[in-house]
C-alpha cells in the first residue's frame, strides 16, 4: 500500500459575502496516494478551484474553512500558521493555473520569476539558481533557455508560458502539483503537448498531480482516480474505468452523454445537461442536482443521499442506488 499523500475529510468552506453565506464546499472528502494522478471534474462553480486553493492554504477573502481537515504529507494544512504554510507552498505543493497569459507577472523577466521561487526555498546562490533555471527550462522543453530567461512573458507564446509556469511549479521538486485547468486556454495541439509533458515529468521526479478540469477527455487519458463534483459536493469518485464505463450518478452520466465519442458507430446525439446549477447562497436540503436530474424522485428534493460503496474505489451519492438497495431489502423481507 502506498502512502496517503493528501487526505481531505469533511471539508466545509463558505464565502461570507454581503448577500449571505455562500456554501462553496459542503462536506467534501477526497484522498489520494503518492504517485497518483487525481482528476477533479465538474462545471464552473462546482468548487474545484476552491478545493485547490484550500489545499494551498490560499482561500481567498471572504472565504473561510468552517469545518473538516486537510492533511497533506504529514501536515495538517488547515491548522497551520501562514508562516509555516509559506514554507510548503512552492516547495512541497505547487500550482499552475488556467491562463498562462495572465499568470506570469508582465513586468518581470522569466528568469526573475523562476529564480524567485528558488531563492525562496533553496540555499542556491545566484549562479547556481541561474544554472538550475536553465536546467528547468530544458526540462520543460524550451529551446534556447539562456535567451528565454532574459525575456518578458509577453514575448512568449501561450504554450511556452505554460511551460514556464510548469518549470516554476517544479523548481523545488514538489510532492504534489495542482494543475487548475492547465490547458483550457491553449490550442488543442499545444494542450496535448503540455499534458504529455506533465505526465513525463511526473514520472521523472516522482510527484503526484491533481488535475482540475471540466474536460473529461483529459481526465480519461491521464488520471488514475476521478472525483466528480457538483455544487460544492463530491457526488461520485472512482477509478477512470469505473467512472467512464460504469457511471452511477445521474450527473456523471449526464456529463458523459454531453461529450462526443469518436468511436461511436451510430450518429449519436450529444445531450446537454438542461438547467442551471443551484444557487449556493441557499443550497437545497436535498441532492443539489435534483432539479436538473431526469430521474429525480421525491426523496431527492428532501434529503442529501449517502454514499453507496460500489467497490473499494467507487463511491456514489445518489438516491437511485439507495432505491435499488431499498427495493432489494424489501424483496428479501417478503
Amino acid at each position, binding site marked *: 500500500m502506498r502512502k496517503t499523500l493528501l487526505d481531505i475529510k469533511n471539508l466545509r468552506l463558505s464565502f461570507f459575502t454581503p448577500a449571505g453565506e455562500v456554501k462553496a464546499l459542503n462536506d467534501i472528502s477526497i484522498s489520494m496516494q503518492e504517485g497518483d494522478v487525481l482528476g477533479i471534474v465538474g462545471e464552473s462553480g462546482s468548487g474545484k478551484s476552491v478545493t485547490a486553493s484550500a489545499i494551498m492554504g490560499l482561500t481567498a477573502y471572504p472565504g473561510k474553512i468552517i469545518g473538516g481537515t486537510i492533511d497533506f504529507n504529514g501536515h495538517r494544512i488547515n491548522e497551520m500558521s501562514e508562516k509555516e504554510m509559506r514554507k510548503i507552498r512552492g516547495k512541497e505543493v505547487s500550482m499552475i493555473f488556467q491562463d498562462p497569459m495572465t499568470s506570469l507577472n508582465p513586468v518581470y523577466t522569466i528568469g526573475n520569476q523562476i529564480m524567485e521561487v528558488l531563492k525562496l526555498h533553496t540555499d542556491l546562490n545566484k549562479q547556481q539558481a541561474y544554472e538550475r533555471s536553465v536546467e528547468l527550462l530544458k526540462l520543460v522543453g524550451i529551446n534556447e533557455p539562456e535567451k528565454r530567461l532574459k525575456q518578458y512573458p509577453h514575448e512568449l507564446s501561450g504554450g511556452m508560458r505554460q511551460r514556464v509556469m510548469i518549470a516554476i511549479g517544479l523548481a523545488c521538486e514538489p510532492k504534489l502539483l495542482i494543475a487548475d485547468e492547465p490547458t483550457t486556454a491553449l490550442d488543442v495541439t499545444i494542450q496535448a503537448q503540455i499534458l504529455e509533458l506533465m505526465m513525463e515529468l511526473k514520472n521523472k521526479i516522482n510527484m503526484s498531480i491533481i488535475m482540475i478540469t471540466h474536460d473529461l477527455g483529459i481526465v480519461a487519458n491521464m488520471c488514475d482516480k476521478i472525483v466528480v463534483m457538483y455544487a460544492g459536493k463530491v457526488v461520485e469518485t472512482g477509478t477512470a474505468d469505473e467512472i467512464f464505463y460504469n457511471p452511477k450518478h445521474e450527473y456523471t452520466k449526464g456529463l458523459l452523454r454531453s461529450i462526443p465519442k469518436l468511436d461511436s458507430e451510430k450518429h449519436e446525439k450529444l445531450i446537454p445537461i438542461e*438547467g*442551471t446549477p*443551484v*444557487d449556493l447562497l*441557499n443550497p*437545497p436540503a*436535498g441532492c443539489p442536482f*435534483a*432539479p436538473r436530474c431526469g*430521474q*429525480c*424522485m*421525491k*426523496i*431527492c*428534493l*428532501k*434529503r442529501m443521499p449517502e454514499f453507496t460503496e460500489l467497490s473499494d474505489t467507487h463511491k456514489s451519492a445518489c*438516491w437511485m442506488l*439507495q*432505491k435499488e438497495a*431499498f*427495493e432489494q431489502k*424489501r424483496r428479501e423481507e417478503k
Partner: protein
Amino acid sequence: MDNKKKPLSFHLDVSDFLPADEREKQSMVVMRESVSFWKDGFRRLRKNKLAMASLVVIIIIMISAFIVPSFYPYSYEQQIRGSENLGIMEYSDAEIERIKSGEEVFPHILGTDSLGRDLMIRIMVGSKISLLVGIVASAIILVIGSAYGSIAGYFGGKVDMIMMRAVDIIYTVPDILIIILLSVTLKFPLKELADNVKAFAWINTVGIGLISIFVVFSLLYWVGMARIVRGQVLMLKEQEYVVAAKALGASDSRIIKKHLLTNSIGTLIVTTTLQIPSSIFTESFLSFLGLGVSAPMPSLGSLASQAIGGISSYPHRLMAPAIVISLIILSFNLLGDGLRDAFDPRLKN
C-alpha cells in the same frame, strides 16, 4: 408531503422513491429572472445608495436653480438700498421698520452683498448659470464628439487615420492654456458679431460670456469624447450583429444609428455625466481668473471668487457658493460613477 418527518430519521418510505414532478423540481430552483439591459441597469442604479442620493441632490439643486428664482421675492440684480452687507437672516433698519408696521418682509436667508443684493437668490441664479454651462457644454461636446468619433471609427482606414491624427494633435495641446487664451480673446469678435450681424443678435441676449464659454469648451473638449466613441464603434463593429446587419443589406447610416449608437449609449451617458462637473469646475476656475461668465450675471465660481477678498469678515459669502459648487460636482461625479457601474456592460461581472 410529510414535512413532519424527523430530519435525522433514516426511515424511508416507498412513496419517497416516486418520481418527482416538474413543479416540485422547479420549486427548488430559485431562478433569477432574466432582465433586459436597461431594466438590469436601473435596478443596479437604484441599489446604489450614493448615486441615488446624488440624483436627489441634483434634482433639488436644479429645482432651486431653474424654478424657484421665477417666484422668489428678490432678483439677482436688485440692489436694495440700505441693506448692504447684511449677515445671515439679518434685516436692515428700514426693513425692521416695515416689519414693525406689519408688513411681511422676506428674510435674506444668506444675507446680502456689498451692493445690497440678496445672496440667496444670487446663489440660486449662479447655480443656474453653472449648471447651464455644464449641461449645454457637455451636450455640444457629446454631439460633436460622437459624430466625429463614429464617422472615424465606422469608416476606418485612411479616413480614420487622418481624422484621428488631428484628434491626437489637439489632444496634446495643453487645453487649459488655450482655454484661457480663448477666453481672453474670444469676447471681442463675439461682441462684434452680435452687434453688427443681425442673425447673431441673440448672442447678446444669452450673454457673450456664456456663449464664449460654450464655444471654448466645445472647441477643446470634444476630442476626448470622439476618442471614446471611436473606440466603442471599433469594438462594436467587429461584433456579429453588425456583420449580420451588413449581410442583410442595411445601409451605413442605419447601422450607425441603429446598432452602433444604441449599443454605445451607456458609455455616452456616463462620459457626458462626468463631463458636466468637469465643465463646471473649469468655469469656476476661469471665474477666479476673471474670465468666466461676466457680471452682472453671477456664476457660482464668480460668486465665490468675488468673496475671497472679504473672507475674514464674511466667510459665509465664500462658503455658500463653494459648498454648492462642490455639492454639484460631487453629485455629478458620484452619479456618473453609479451610472458607469450600472450601465457600462464591459464592467458587468
